[in-house]
């Protein structure tokens, strides 16, 4: 088997590493939740980098 021109060997990734994939999924979900919650706090709701300005929602909160 080849990947980018380099010989690679097969490894049963899902069979042995599925707990880590579950962990990465849970962390991704948790970090996204925290990020969304932090974006809407009083400190950052009127920050010019807030994504709601990109959506066209321009009034101050």
């Amino acid at each position, binding site marked *: 088997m080849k990947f980018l*021109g380099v*010989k690679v060997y097969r*490894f049963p990734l899902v069979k042995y*590493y599925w*707990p880590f994939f579950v962990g990465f999924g*849970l*962390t*991704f979900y948790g*970090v*996204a939740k925290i990020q969304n919650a932090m974006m809407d706090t009083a400190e950052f709701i009127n920050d010019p980098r807030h994504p709601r300005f990109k959506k066209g929602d321009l009034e101050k909160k």
Partner: protein
Amino acid sequence: MTNNYINSPLDQFIINNLLEINSPFLNLSTLNFSTFSLYTLFVVLVISLTFILSIGGESNNLVKGSNWLIAIEAIFDTILNMVKGQIGGSVYGRYVPLVYTLFTFILVANLIGMVPYNFALSASLIYIIGISVSLWIGLTILGLFLNKAVFFSLFVPSGTPLPLVPVLVLIELLSYTARAISLGLRLAANTLSGHLLMSILGNLVKNLMSINYFTFIFGLIPLAGIFAIVILEFAIACIQAYVFAILTSSYLKDSIYLH
């Protein structure tokens, strides 16, 4: 020669969006191509390039590998011996790819961050702590899956007197939970404070040396000290990648074999 804005040493960790994806319905800011993505791409590119250079690449006409193979072999031998020494038993071979990937990625990311004016990937606290938290969740699931309820014997050190058990279980549970943060915080805090230290000292010496000719000559002495700190930072960049790998394999051993 004076800037009309204030340079904070923390400015070097700012992440800029290079390519944005916007939509009026969904928040797709996860898909933005930022400085961070660019440097992740650099790291993957450097690792792939080392592999391609070592065993011949597309034509694959090298039978014994070039001199680049020595670097890969040396790193792989170190990781294999480390995982074998830490985990042991018969199943250590399964976890060599995981620890090898973590070590190589963190090492290359740290060393790319040490190049002047570059972005240090592992100084982003949320990224590195995210990696360590997900590793910790994975280790807990792995331990519960392999050892079922016996996994909880990890929280009781062998030979504990019975009256001490409730207290020790609490302490061990606390230290087990703190691993999730401390594993990543160690690496991120090292990189963060190292880069901040170099930036602050460099700015101080630059201000001193730009006063007049005498201070320019005199400033060469602290500059030599800063070069020593830079060398120390290079050593720390390698050692912290090694420490991350060795602690990951030691935690793996705790989940698989319990003590």
